[in-house]
C-alpha cells in the first residue's frame, strides 16, 4: 500500500484546462473520494493516477517514488472501470488471472490466488462461467476481484456502482468498504453520488472546474462548506445575503444584518475573522431549520408556508420570509403536517451553530 501525493497537476484538452494546479495528499490505507458534477475533472484526475493520461505539468508520487512518467502497465494500480471492462472472450477465472499472467507468476500460484479472490467476492465456483452469463452485480464483483488479485499499490474506482440498481448499490457500498479496510487498501473512488461519498469516504475532495474546491472528512465538508458550490453539491441549503455588523458577545459568533432581521452566525472556518461591513452569505440546511418561537433564540423570523410536499419520512415546506427570500424547511415525520397559509403565522428558527457564514 502506498500514500499518493499529487503536486501541481495541470492538464489541458484542446486548450481547455481540465485540471489546474491540483495538489492532494492521500494517506496510506485511506478510502478517498473524488466528488463533483460531470466535467469537473474527477475522472481525468483518476486516469492520471492510473497513468492513462500524461499531465502537462506537475507530478504524481506513490510514497517517495515519482511515477509521473511510469507507463500504465508498470504502475501497479488496480482499476475498476465504470463499464467494468470485462473481456467477453475470456471466462471469469481467465479475466481474474490476466494480471497475474502478465506478471509471469507460476500457474499453481495463479490458480490458488484466483480461487481465493473469487471466494472473497462471493463468486467461489463461478470461475468457468462466461462473462455474459453473469448478472450486473456479479460482473461488478469480477471486476473487483480482477483488480484485487494483483495486490495493487492502490485501488482506483471509476464510478463502479453507477450501473447497478439502488438495492444492489447499497449492498456493494458496504462490501467495497469492508474489503478496502480489511486489506488496508489505499483507494481512490470517483463518483457524482453524494450519498455514496458521504457514507463510504474517510476523506473526500469536491472538485469544480478542474480545481479542488474543498478537501476534508464528510462531516467537515457537510457542516463547514468552503463555498456555496460545495454547500449545494454536498446537500440542500438555503442561502441568505447579509453584512457583518460586529462580533457578538460570544467569541466566534457574529451578528449579521440580513435586511429582514439580524441573524447570528459562525464563520465556516476558525481562522477567518470577518470584519465589520463585510458582505457575506449565510447557509443553513433545511433539516437544521425548525418551526417554533423560542424567546431567547437569536435566529428566528416570521414567515408563511407557501407550499408543503409530503415525502413520507420527511415533509418539505417552502417558507416565505420576505418577497425575495424563500427558505426550504424539512421536518422529520411530523405528527401534524402544516398547510400553506396567507398570513405570516409561523416562526422559522435555526441555531447559531447551524447558520454558517461563507465568504462572498
Amino acid at each position, binding site marked *: 500500500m502506498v500514500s499518493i501525493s499529487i503536486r501541481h497537476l495541470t492538464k489541458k484538452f484542446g486548450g481547455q484546462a481540465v485540471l489546474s494546479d491540483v495538489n492532494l495528499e492521500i494517506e496510506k490505507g485511506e478510502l478517498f473520494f473524488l466528488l463533483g458534477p460531470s466535467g469537473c475533472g474527477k475522472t481525468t484526475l483518476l486516469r492520471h493516477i492510473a497513468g492513462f493520461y500524461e499531465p502537462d505539468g506537475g507530478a504524481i508520487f506513490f510514497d517517495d517514488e515519482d511515477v509521473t512518467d511510469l507507463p*500504465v502497465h508498470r504502475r501497479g494500480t488496480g482499476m475498476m472501470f465504470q463499464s467494468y471492462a470485462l473481456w467477453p472472450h475470456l471466462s471469469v477465472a481467465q479475466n481474474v488471472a490476466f*494480471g497475474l499472467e502478465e506478471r509471469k507468476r507460476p500457474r499453481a500460484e495463479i490458480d490458488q490466488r484466483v480461487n481465493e479472490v473469487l471466494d472473497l467476492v462471493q463468486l467461489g465456483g463461478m470461475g468457468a462461467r462466461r462473462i455474459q452469463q453473469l448478472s450486473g452485480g456479479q460482473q461488478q464483483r469480477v471486476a473487483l476481484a480482477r483488480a484485487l488479485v494483483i495486490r495493487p499499490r492502490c485501488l482506483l474506482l471509476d464510478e463502479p456502482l453507477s450501473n447497478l440498481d439502488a438495492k444492489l448499490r447499497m449492498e456493494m457500498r458496504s462490501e467495497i468498504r469492508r474489503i478496502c479496510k480489511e486489506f488496508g487498501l489505499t483507494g481512490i473512488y470517483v463518483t457524482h453520488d453524494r450519498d455514496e461519498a458521504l457514507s463510504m469516504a474517510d476523506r473526500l475532495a469536491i472538485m469544480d472546474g478542474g480545481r479542488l474546491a474543498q478537501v476534508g472528512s464528510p462531516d467537515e465538508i457537510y457542516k463547514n462548506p468552503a463555498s456555496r458550490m460545495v454547500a449545494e453539491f454536498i446537500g440542500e441549503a438555503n442561502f441568505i445575503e447579509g453584512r457583518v455588523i460586529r462580533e457578538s458577545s460570544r467569541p466566534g459568533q457574529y451578528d449579521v444584518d440580513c435586511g429582514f432581521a439580524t441573524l447570528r452566525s459562525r464563520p465556516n472556518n476558525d481562522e477567518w475573522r470577518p470584519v465589520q461591513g463585510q458582505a457575506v452569505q449565510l447557509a443553513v440546511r433545511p433539516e437544521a431549520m425548525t418551526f417554533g418561537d423560542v424567546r431567547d433564540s437569536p435566529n428566528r423570523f416570521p414567515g408563511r408556508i407557501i407550499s408543503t410536499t409530503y415525502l413520507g419520512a420527511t415533509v418539505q415546506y417552502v417558507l416565505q420570509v420576505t418577497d425575495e427570500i424563500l427558505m426550504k424547511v424539512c421536518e422529520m415525520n411530523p405528527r401534524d403536517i402544516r398547510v400553506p397559509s396567507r398570513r405570516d403565522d409561523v416562526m422559522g428558527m435555526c441555531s447559531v451553530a447551524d447558520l454558517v457564514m461563507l465568504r462572498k
Partner: protein
Amino acid sequence: MSTNLSRVVFSSMLIFFACFFVFPIWSTVKSAFLTQSGSFTLEYVSEVFLNEIYRDGLMNAFSIAFWTTVGCLIVALPLAFCYVRFEFPGKTLLNSLVLIPMILPPFVGAIGVKAMLGQAGAVNSFLAAFGLMDPAHPIDWLGEGQMLGIVIMEVLHLYPILYLNAAAALANIDPALEEAATSFGCNPVRRFWRVTLPLIMPGVFAGGTIVFIWAFTELGVPLVFDYSRVTSVQIFSAIKDLSGNPFPYALVVVMLVLSTLIYGVSKWFFGSSSSGGGGRATTARETVVLPMRTGIACACGFALVTFLAVIPHLGVLFLAVAQDWYGTVFPEALTLTHYRDALGHELTLSSISNSLKYSAAATLVDLVLGVAVAYVVVRTRIKGRQILDAMAMLPLAVPGLVMAFGFLAMTRDGQMFDWLMIGENPVLVLVIAYSVRRLPYVVRSASAGFQQVSPSLEEAAQNLGATPERALWRITLPLVAPNLIAGAMLAFAFAMLEVSDSMILAAQSAHYPITKAIYSLISSLGNGPNIAAALGVWAMMFLAVTFISAALILGKRLGALFRA
C-alpha cells in the same frame, strides 16, 4: 499502442498511399498533359472531345451509367421499402438472396447472357417455339441492342448496392417524423412523397453515385459484349497500340475528372445531411404484417428479382455443361468435359494459381494495412487521422481503370517504379494494385470492429500490467477477429475477380489471372466459350463459399460493408 508507434504507422501509411495511390493517378494525369518532349499540352485532352469516336464513347458510357442507375432505382427502391416496412413470409431468407448478384461477377454473367440472347440463343428459340418469332428472321438482340444488354447486366449486378443504402436510410428515419405528418392530415401516398422520400434521398443518392461511377467505368461487361464504342473499352484497346500513345491517358483523365465531379456534386448536394432526418429514432417502428396474399406477392417480388439477376449466371452454368447449345431453349446434350478441359487447359491452371497467389498476397497486405489504419483512426488522437481514413476509403470512388492505368504508367521503363515490374512479371504490381483497391473493405470492417470494442477493455489490460502492444494482442485482436476474417474474405474474393488491373497489367499469358484467362478463352475458337464458362463456374462456386462463410461469421453486419 504507444504514441510513437502510432506515428510510425501513420507516416508509413501516408508514404504507401502517396506511392501507390496518389502517384499512379498523378502518373496518368501527367502522361495526359505532357508531350513526348516534356512540355505541357492540352492537345490530347481536347482531342478527346473533338474526336467523334471518343466523344461517342463518352456519351455511351454516360448513357450506360445513367440507365443503369435508373434501372437500379426502379428495382431496388420498392424492395427496400417492402423490406423495412412490411413483414412477409420468408423475409429474412429473401433479404439475403436478393443480395446474391452483388457477389456474382457480371463479367462472367455476360458470357451467359451472350449465349442466351444470341441469334440462335435460348430466348429466340423460346420465342420461335411458341410461334412468336419467325425462325428464318431471328431478332438480333445483341447486334443493335448491345447497350441494352450491358445495361441489363449491370442493373442486375449493381442493384444490391442501392438496395442496401436505401434500406439503411429507410430504417434510420425516425418514425415520429412520419407519424407527425399523418397527424397533420397527410395521406400515406402524399406522406411518402413529402416526408419519406426527401429523408432517404441522401442515402439513395450515395448508393446511386456508387452505381453510376461503377457503371460509367465498367470494363468487363462491355468487353464481353464486344461493345467497342464506350470509353472504357476504347482505353483498353488503345493500350495495345503501345506506350507512346497519349490518348488512353487523356481518356482516363477525362473519366477520372467526370467521376470525381459526379462524386463531388452528390456529396455537395447531400453532404452532411445523411442521417435520415436528424437524430435518433424516438419511437420504435412497427413493421406492418401483410395479409397472406399481399405478403406472398411481396415475397414473389423478391424472388423474381433474384431469379432475373441470376439468369445470366444460370446461362453460364448451362454453357459450361452444354455439349451443344445452338437454336434450343435448353442445351441439348449435357457433358462435364468442359470442367475437365478447363482444369486441363494450360491457361486455366496457371491462371487459377496466379490468381490465388496474387490475391492471397494482396489480402495479407490489406490485413496488415487495414488493421493499422483502422487502429490509428479509431483509437488514437493523432492529427490528420481523418485524412488517412479518407484516403483508405478513396479507392472505392476512383475507377479501377484509372488506377490500373496509373500503375501501368508508373512502371513503364525509365519511370520511378519500373523495378516493380520484374522483367515482364507483373506479380508485385498486381499485388499492390489489388491491395490498394480492396483495402477499403478491410479498413471498413476493421474500424467497425474497433468501434465495437470499448477502449476500456484495453485500458483494463494495461492497468493489470500488459504493455500496450500485449493488450492489443491479447484483448482487442481476438475480439475483432471475426471482422478481420470477414473483411479479408471480401478483399480476397474481390481480388480474385478483379477485372481492370488484371486486364491491363498482365501482359503475358503465363501471368494471366483468372479474369484475363476467361476473357482470352471467350474469344478463342472451338469450345473456348464453354471452357471459359466452366472456369467462371469454378470461380463463382469459390466466391459463393467465401461469402457464405463471411456471412455466417459476420451475421447481419455483412451488409454494412457495401454501404456508402
